[in-house]
């Protein structure tokens, strides 16, 4: 048994345990920690496939940024709040089973086929996921999708504002900016 196999088995089990915790934990903070374990294990899988850059990005973006966002959202909603456990979508449970089975089949098919991204996932020679190779592909072949990403990021920012800010019309905002505050009354407003 090679070292790669040992590491893979350890982290595969960790990934599965994390996923199970994520689904079964009563407290959403523990669920988030389970998901974090899974994310981290997936980063280790990338390392095992010589994709060091992708592994670092996976930890940085998913385990770092996105999971922090999740934790904030969980705490934003209030962890200990009694939850509304009515299921609002009809046939929720059977649908989940069907969709899960569908996803499983899809993974099996996609794992065998190469049509998903047009190239085989693993080629001979290794060193596929180095930062140089990713950059060559990204700024050479996939330049337009790369530029489109920034639109996606902009949409994310706009969506966040739409969700979180109750101010909705730019004109009202401009009016708000122009509204005068008499000097010396700032403390009064802060007390609000």
């Amino acid at each position, binding site marked *: 048994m090679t070292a790669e196999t040992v*590491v893979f088995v350890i982290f595969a089990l960790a990934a599965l345990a994390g996923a199970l915790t994520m689904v079964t934990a009563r407290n959403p903070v523990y669920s988030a920690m389970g998901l974090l374990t899974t994310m981290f294990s997936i980063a280790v899988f990338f390392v095992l496939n010589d994709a060091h850059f992708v592994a670092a990005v996976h930890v940085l*973006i998913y385990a770092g*940024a996105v999971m922090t966002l999740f934790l904030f*959202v969980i705490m934003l909603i209030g962890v*200990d709040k009694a939850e509304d456990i009515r299921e609002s979508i009809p046939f929720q449970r059977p649908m989940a089973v069907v969709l899960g089975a569908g996803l499983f089949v899809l993974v099996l098919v996609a794992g065998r086929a190469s049509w998903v991204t047009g190239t085989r996932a693993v080629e001979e020679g290794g060193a596929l996921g180095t930062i140089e190779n990713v950059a060559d592909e990204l700024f050479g072949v996939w330049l337009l999708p790369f530029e489109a990403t920034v639109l996606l990021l902009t949409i994310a920012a706009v969506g966040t504002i739409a969700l*979180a800010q109750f101010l909705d019309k730019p004109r009202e905002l401009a009016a708000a900016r122009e*509204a005068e505050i008499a000097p010396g009354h700032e403390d009064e*407003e802060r007390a609000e």
Partner: protein
Amino acid sequence: MTLADYLPIALMFVLGVGFASVAMYFSWRIAPKKPTPEKLAPYECGIVPLQEPAQRFPVKFYMVAMLFVIFDVEIIFLFAWAVRFDQFGWAGIAAVGIFVALLIETLVYVWKRGALDWNVARRARYRRVVAPERVQEEAA
């Protein structure tokens, strides 16, 4: 780079977790344990806690986390381009220039919508004009 390059990291991880756990366990074993109800209460500078701790964060923090995700993604792309700077030349600079310009635009948008304002007085100013009923509710 091979898996062996990560060996020190794995060892340090084990050592760090081990040291912290053993030290905490050891300290717990040898230290006195005299719990009293007062000692076990949440710390409030000696005042008897009257309220439960707030279980909700203000929504501002959600926006900060979202902006962080956006900028983190940007950092990754910029790093990838920076190591291949010489190969892509001015074309690369133009491509990334568009990318960064649009992100600056995003930042300006968020800024002008007041998402970066943490000053209570300044936000109260928006609220008075835009949602006067809210101010009245809060006053009541």
